[in-house]
């Protein structure tokens, strides 16, 4: 169901930020802004490289421990991608505002709950990367990310981009990201699972993030994120360089 839908994105939507993007996929909508390189506060100034500051803000309610955790995950991954050495003592500030999350019509949600939500990570990461590209922050490479859930039974045991109801049923949830060089950038897991299961998850995720799709194949493994990223950017660049 939700998994098969294509992601949507728009770049440089915020006129006053250095770079920005919105990204919507699998029920998640995230607005991202990037400012930088700018002057870092003494506190988080690093003498030899740029400090990447990631701020995740929930759609409703105050940010809490959960957001801090997401921020730390993203911060480490993005620092890998950005050429931080180019801007010592500088700050690259990434603000990710969650605008919408998929709603589960079958339960009433509380605002603050002590649970991680991995499924939002891919959306956050993609948004961040798009925003960084729109801000023309020098990067080593790009990346793509997805979430895989292991559900007890059903047609397929692995679910890509699971919807909330699947997550409730899932034994374990995994979020993975791969760089454009097919290297594993990020892997976080939650729940109980066997090594074998994880290997399967790894393959499935890599399939989605790395394997280029042929045009004719009907797309059931999920969207071709890499291709999506490229086309989105090409449109943007072409538009910017209309005068060339």
């Amino acid at each position, binding site marked *: 169901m939700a998994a098969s839908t294509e992601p949507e994105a728009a770049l440089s939507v915020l006129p006053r930020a250095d770079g920005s993007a919105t990204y919507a996929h699998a029920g998640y909508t995230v607005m991202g802004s990037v400012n930088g390189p700018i002057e870092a506060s003494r506190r988080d100034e690093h003498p*030899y490289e740029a400090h990447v500051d990631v701020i995740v803000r929930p759609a409703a309610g105050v940010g809490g421990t959960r957001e801090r955790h997401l921020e730390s995950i993203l911060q480490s991954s993005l620092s890998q991608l950005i050429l931080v050495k180019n801007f010592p003592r500088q700050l690259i500030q990434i603000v990710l505002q969650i605008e919408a999350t998929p709603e589960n019509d079958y339960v009433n949600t509380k605002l603050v709950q002590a649970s991680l939500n991995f499924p939002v990570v891919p959306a956050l990461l993609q948004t961040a990367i798009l925003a960084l590209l729109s801000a023309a922050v020098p990067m080593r490479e790009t990346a793509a990310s997805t979430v895989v859930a292991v559900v007890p039974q059903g047609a397929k045991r692995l679910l890509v981009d699971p919807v909330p109801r699947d997550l409730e049923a899932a034994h374990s949830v995994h979020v993975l990201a791969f760089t454009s060089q097919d290297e594993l950038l990020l892997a976080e897991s939650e729940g109980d699972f066997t090594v074998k299961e994880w290997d399967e998850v790894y393959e499935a995720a890599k399939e989605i993030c790395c394997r280029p799709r042929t045009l004719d194949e009907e797309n059931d493994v999920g969207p071709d994120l890499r291709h999506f990223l490229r086309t989105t950017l090409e449109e943007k660049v072409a538009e910017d360089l209309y005068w060339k």
Partner: protein
Amino acid sequence: MASSSSIALPGQLLGPASKFQPGPGTHIHQSNLYSSLLGVVHISQPAKAPGPTKRLTKITPAPAPAELPTVSVSRSGVSEKREVLPEVGNTVLCRVIRITPRQAVVAILICGDTVLHAEWQGLIRVQDVRATEKDKVKIYESFRPGDIVRAEVISLGDQANFYLSTARNELGVLLATSEAGNNMFPVNWKEYQDPETGVSEPRKVARPY
């Protein structure tokens, strides 16, 4: 009366001030010497002719009771965690953190023979980089962030920084990293060279011993 190389505890009597000179880790209370540290007691006999070692240009009063042996309590051997405060005259090794047209900010790593745990910050002002042609000195052509520098403490400085100087031949950059990120070797008194790219960069080079 403490025999040499025994253990002392803070507040332990070491001897009368009339017999000893107070060294590090001791203090005087009612004309007696007491230990102020938990450590090993050392008694060093005075070096003969203790006169001023350098800067003879200065008039220095003869250090009064120099003949007495110095008693000191040192942490060495007690714990590897020993912190010292850089002192005027100390030679220090430091890493360059930030440079501006006026000064280079450094983090002091080693003071004398002690590796520091806390981060003490130092400052090499443009006029203290070298002894000659001070007005021609450009910080950017003397230091780069990441360089390892040997310098001498010239003043306790302001609240945050010790003031350091590299205005001697054996002082200056010991280890330099090139823009490309490789370790370089010194080629002359004001240049380092990148072995890979062959590009050479200006530095205030320390004369190797």
